[in-house]
């Protein structure tokens, strides 16, 4: 009967029962997004905050450079576009790393006996009982030049002098990877667990080797899980600001950090931050749209 509850079974209670969901969506999604959208078209106030005057200045500032006093002919402003681009690259690399490590992990867990599976899943989620900020700060402590990792590597004799890891792309990737790996593992696990392994046997029976079976039979079957995992890693990585800020330093600025700065202290620029958020949101929506399109195409095929 699950999932087959008919509309009529709740009768007149249907609307009141849905109310909490609508309140949630309204307060935590629609109102905040609309607020940001409106703010992105307002004029900045110098001590933070906004003046209620319509302006395209925030978007203009994102894309164009009009000189110090704003009276020169507009040139393309590459600073923010570059930050945006770097964020996309960083998020893509983080997604690929999570996929390359997450897929075998998920496959491994899904092919254990049902009892041990739960233990593995538990282990994967244990780090998430600790706050993301604390974990990121701990990571910073671990990999700094005088930190335990370098200390240990030198003691073992693998290196002579500390490897400089902090404030590098590597550190940002490590942070992103560590933050979002479970978001890759769990959806892939769910789809591998549902996978009918007799299909792999059928493939082997028909003379396919292991890699061919993986590529031709397993991957197409678990594709929805892989796509879901990639989106769940890519989207938050794109807007991440903790890892780039704490581990990447000033050189490895990402869009999340840029937005965060606009709302911090008196130096901020709320309309500009709101505009950057809107641009980030649009990018994410485009990614999700592609996903939805590929899903509905698949649904058509079945």
């Amino acid at each position, binding site marked *: 009967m699950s999932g087959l509850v008919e509309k009529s079974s709740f009768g007149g209670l249907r609307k009141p029962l849905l109310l909490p969901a609508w309140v949630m969506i309204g307060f935590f999604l629609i109102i905040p997004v609309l607020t940001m959208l409106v703010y992105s078209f307002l004029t900045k106030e110098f001590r933070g905050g906004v003046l209620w005057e319509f302006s395209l200045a925030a978007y203009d500032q994102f894309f164009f450079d009009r000189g110090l006093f704003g009276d020169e002919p507009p040139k393309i402003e590459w600073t923010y576009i570059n930050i945006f681009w770097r964020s996309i690259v960083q998020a893509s690399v983080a997604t690929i790393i999570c996929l390359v490590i997450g897929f075998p992990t998920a496959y491994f867990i899904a092919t254990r006996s049902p009892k041990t599976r739960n233990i593995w899943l538990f282990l994967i989620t244990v780090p998430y009982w600790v706050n993301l900020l604390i974990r990121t700060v701990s990571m910073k402590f671990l990999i700094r030049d005088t930190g335990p990792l370098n200390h240990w590597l030198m003691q073992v004799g693998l290196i002579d002098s500390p490897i400089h890891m902090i404030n590098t792309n590597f550190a940002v990737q490590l942070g992103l990877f560590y933050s979002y790996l479970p978001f890759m593992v769990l959806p892939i696990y769910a789809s591998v667990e549902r996978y*009918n392994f*007799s*299909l792999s*046997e*059928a*493939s*082997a*029976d*028909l*003379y*396919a*080797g292991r890699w*061919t079976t993986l590529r031709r*039979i397993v991957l*197409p*079957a678990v594709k929805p899980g892989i796509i879901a995992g990639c989106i769940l890693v890519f989207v938050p990585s794109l807007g991440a600001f903790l890892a780039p800020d704490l581990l990447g330093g000033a050189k490895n600025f990402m869009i999340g950090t840029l937005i965060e700065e606009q709302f911090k202290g008196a130096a901020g620029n709320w309309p500009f931050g709101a505009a950057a958020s809107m641009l980030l949101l649009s990018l994410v929506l485009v990614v999700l749209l592609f996903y939805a399109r590929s899903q509905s195409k698949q649904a058509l*095929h*079945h």
Partner: protein
Amino acid sequence: MTQGKQANVAVAANSLFKNYGSVEALKDVSLSINDNEFFTLLGPSGCGKTTLLRIIAGFEAITAGTLFLHGKNIADLPANKRPVNTVFQSYSLFPHMTVADNVGFGLEMQGKDKKQIKRRTAEMLELVQLGSYADRKPSQLSGGQQQRVALARALAPQPEVLLLDEPLSALDLKLRKAMRIELQQIQENAGITFIFVTHDQEEALTMSDRIAVMSQGELQQLGTATDIYQEPKNKFVADFIGESNLVATTVLSGDSTSIQCKLTDRISIIMPNAQGAARGDQGQLCIRPERIRLSNAGESSNLEGVVDGIMYLGTDTQVIVKLDDRQTLGVRTQNADNDRPIVEVGQRVGLHIDESSCRFLAV
């Protein structure tokens, strides 16, 4: 080992053992399956028949023993290197591929060229009468059609042996009966050895050249349908194949050709000595229900009883008769037989046993 080298033996298994931890799934199974044979592994669930099939396919490793395919030791060959194909119980068609791609998959993996794959695929789909379904996805087909695709897919690479794991069990009765005939015809036309696993004795009896009856990981008996039905080796086979009246008995006297066994305190039966039994042996007396004829009481019969139950089965009627010493016997009467007495529960009847068809089973 020598039997594996004979040209007409397709599969030769010698003293196969398979353990899962402490569970013995196969215990000392030896059998040889001939070329072009329709060979059936028959037994209740958990008897080891599917394990044996999966061992031949290469999905399970053997714990001990040898396994030869056309004289070649295949025990250590992985599944994708063995020239055998399987029709899976749940078909296991690749859901994201079309019917044609499913059927062509094995050929593609064998490295056949595109033209060849296309021709052979079309040929196979024609064979299973699904020529017009080539571009469909498996999910768009009925159970029976999926079953045919699975068969076409397994036959396409021309395997030396085709393994069928209860392929008809998911179909409804009518379709199952039609598929039995079709499978037999395909087997005859393709000239490929079929190893067919089933728990359905009727399926086994109607389709097979030879049947291996298995129970609890052991081979109980191997023979043609008639052999197994008429000369069951033990109580399990007699009970599992068809129906049997099994009565505890003692051999009263006998020689190498015939023996006399006790049925009731007053009555004994003389039958062929099929298993070399000797006087004083204890065991089971096996009497097939259709080998007992009913008559009205007092009509030249020294064995009488009272009708205890009647089951109408369409073509037959099963009558349960309680003998005077409380032993019950099942009797099959054909409803087309107009000479049979019409009986009612509680009626006293005479029984005539076809003694030459009875067997004494020591175990």
